[in-house]
């Protein structure tokens, strides 16, 4: 179906496209789920819509209410779109070092922004948001890191879509942020295909982001359940940018840097399967397009230059 009553009804049901040029063998295939085809251009539209509708059903959210959320970008943009159409005010708490495009987009969609210190990254944004929430008890914090509706959006949407389009799926690879995509789609796929491997690709940031982290005050999203995953890879900016560029050069897909990190993990698995002589159908998430990251320097110059530019930025 390609006709919808309104924009919100068009969230999800994204295309799954094969990557014949990047797939390493006829029986080891890579498949990209194009989540950038969602209304605001990212996978986060699914979680934003699901979290707001769940809060409405529970009676936590009434027309005219204010929503507060720690977000470094995409979730904020998605929430802003849904909030605009449903009549809520949105305040985002985000690290001051996210890309300029993201801040501008949020304002365009009508969100208000409170910045948190760059050092400390999203941890600090989460801490600040919890503090502000305590001072404003009538504001509703949906809290993507612990909201079951975030994972449920993928259990009910992304997971079933993947299995319907690719019944032969052997691996699912996605980014590990709030963990909603992996937990939700991962659980659904595991329930219906017990042998499927669920693989997390986690961004490895520069020194600045980890710099001041105390090992006793780390952060693990409440949604995270290690038992859903088969393996978890840490991917640095150099590998992420290299694969992001490869995806555009060879398959014509213009994606953001976090997708490059996911593709890096997916291609690593594909190479192992070729070596082991096993067939594989590896589906991975294209989280968003590259538009919002043009100012980061990831798309121009040498890999060394891109790596330097991304140092200290929250690129995924």
């Amino acid at each position, binding site marked *: 179906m390609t006709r919808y009553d309104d924009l919100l009804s068009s969230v999800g049901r994204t295309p799954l496209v094969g990557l014949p040029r990047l797939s390493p063998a006829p029986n080891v295939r890579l498949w990209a789920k194009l989540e950038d085809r969602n209304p605001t251009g990212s996978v986060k539209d699914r979680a934003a819509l699901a979290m707001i509708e769940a809060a409405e059903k529970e009676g936590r959210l009434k027309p005219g209410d204010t929503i507060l959320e720690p977000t470094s*970008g995409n*979730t904020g943009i998605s929430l802003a779109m849904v909030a605009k159409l449903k009549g809520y005010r949105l305040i985002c708490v985000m690290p001051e070092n996210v890309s300029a495009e993201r801040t501008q987009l949020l304002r365009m969609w009508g969100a208000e922004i409170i910045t948190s210190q760059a050092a400390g990254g*999203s941890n600090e944004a989460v801490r600040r948001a919890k503090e502000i929430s305590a001072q404003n008890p009538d504001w509703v914090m949906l809290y993507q890191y612990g909201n079951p509706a975030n994972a449920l959006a993928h259990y009910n949407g992304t997971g079933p879509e993947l299995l319907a389009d690719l019944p032969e799926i052997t691996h699912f690879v996605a980014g590990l942020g*709030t963990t909603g995509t992996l937990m939700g789609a991962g659980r659904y796929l595991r329930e219906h295909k017990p042998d499927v491997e669920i693989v997390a690709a986690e961004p490895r940031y520069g020194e600045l982001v980890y710099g001041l982290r*105390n*090992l006793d005050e780390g*952060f693990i999203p409440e949604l995270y359940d290690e038992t859903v995953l088969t*393996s978890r890879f840490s991917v640095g900016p150099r590998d992420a940018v290299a694969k992001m560029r490869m995806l555009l050069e060879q398959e014509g897909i213009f994606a953001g840097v976090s997708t490059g990190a996911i593709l890096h993990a997916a291609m690593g698995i594909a190479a192992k399967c070729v070596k082991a002589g096993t067939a594989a159908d590896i589906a991975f998430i294209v989280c968003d397009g590259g538009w919002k990251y043009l100012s980061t320097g990831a798309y121009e110059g040498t890999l060394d230059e891109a790596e330097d530019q991304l140092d200290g930025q929250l690129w995924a």
Partner: protein
Amino acid sequence: MAIQVSLPTILRPLAKDLRRVDTEGETLAQAIDFLEASFPGLKDRLVEDGALRRYVNIYINDEDVRFLGGLDSELSDGDRIDVLPAVAGGQ
């Protein structure tokens, strides 16, 4: 056997302010014990009650050791170990 370990800023004061240190061992546990001999106190920041501390992530060649065998994860010559604090990702 040369295995390189990169340490986060927060742990470097325990390792003479070095960003990278070399270690030896056939398992991660042995590699950590080897480091402890040169840098006393480091092990306690990584391991608690015989398991990895909750907010410490260790990767061997970019793969999280919790999915490889934890402290019993096997090491080979040339492996790269990264130690990182758990941080919030996501957007």
